[in-house]
């Protein structure tokens, strides 16, 4: 029961402080679940990110469900998921019922200008940490660099590029390299 409560509270904290969507969430979840609480390893965090990106739904939900399930099964998954959703549920419910012009409140707009910058810093920080722990072979570096460059180029040239397309290409390239290595290995063995 105590563990369920801890999962709930931890993810409620994450839910209450992650502005700016899924990628900001990844940086905070990695910090808390991998480094502070040590509920999951860095490798698992990377796997969650892959699962989250290749399944539908908000990344935060995938992360909370994964960590909760690993700690305490279905009950843990429910505790963590409810925790991560509850703060924003309450906040939005209040705003939608009582604040018609939420975004025109001066201090809200100012605070959010600051927060937006912090979120960008945190996302870059999360990516750099992941790069540090990435396997250091040429193919991995190349896929990472190309994906980043392609996304940036698409944004600035205003071309539509879905991250799913990029992921499919990356998976295909990596799989081809693996099959080529295997074939080469078999022929070398003969």
């Amino acid at each position: 029961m105590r563990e369920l409560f801890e999962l709930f509270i931890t993810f409620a904290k994450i839910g209450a402080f992650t502005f700016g969507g899924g990628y900001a969430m990844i940086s905070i979840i990695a910090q808390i679940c991998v480094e502070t609480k040590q509920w999951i390893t860095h490798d698992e965090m990377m796997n969650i990110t892959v699962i989250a990106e290749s399944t539908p739904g908000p990344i935060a939900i995938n992360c909370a469900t994964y960590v909760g399930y690993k700690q305490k099964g279905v009950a843990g998954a429910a505790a963590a998921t409810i925790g991560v959703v509850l703060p924003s549920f309450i906040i939005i419910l209040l705003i939608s019922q009582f604040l018609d012009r939420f975004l025109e409140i001066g201090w809200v707009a100012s605070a959010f200008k600051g927060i937006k910058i912090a979120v960008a810093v945190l996302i870059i920080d999360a990516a750099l940490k992941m790069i540090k722990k990435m396997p250091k072979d040429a193919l991995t570096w190349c896929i990472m660099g190309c994906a980043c460059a392609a996304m940036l180029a698409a944004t600035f040239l205003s071309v539509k590029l879905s991250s799913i397309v990029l992921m499919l290409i990356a998976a295909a390239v990596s799989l081809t390299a693996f099959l080529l290595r295997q074939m080469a290995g078999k022929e070398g063995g003969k």
Partner: protein
Amino acid sequence: MIYLDLLLGFLKVGFFAFGGAYAAVPLIRDVVLDYGWINEDMLSYIIAVAESTPGPIMVNLATYVGSTQAGALGSFIATTAVVLPSFVITILIMVLLKKLMENPVAKAVLGGLKPCIIGIILSVGVEMLLSNLGIRAKEAIAFDLTAAAIAAGLAVVYYGSRKLFKKGLSPIGLIAVSAVVGIVIYGI
């Protein structure tokens, strides 16, 4: 019935929204406009509110639309519906995952997916930073010196505190600091 519509509509959003909230916006727009819940203007406003409040954007959207359509119960139903598909799918994957991860072919696929996602995350961060500094696509570059100073200051405080102290500033702490800095610099 509005409750059933909200349930089905947002189950659809939760089930088909791949690739994060922004990739899902067109789908959300279709569903929300189809049912005639809100108009295009209101949708843009709600997306802006969802971005400026904590929590996953998709969840915020569902809560907001549900609440305006059918009060607290409506928002509860819409939120549950948007969360449920990924909750169930993640648990299913975890049950199946252990065996799958040992498979060399799956490992090779993952070996390509991971760096690709790292690259995408890096690009999102860089793009957000540039956009905050006034460098955006299809717009004249208006370099925002104040924002650049805030970004540099936040980075120094964040990394500096981690170098100097064992615990340092947490990401949540940095967000709190940045909100205060925003209010101080941009005013009330």
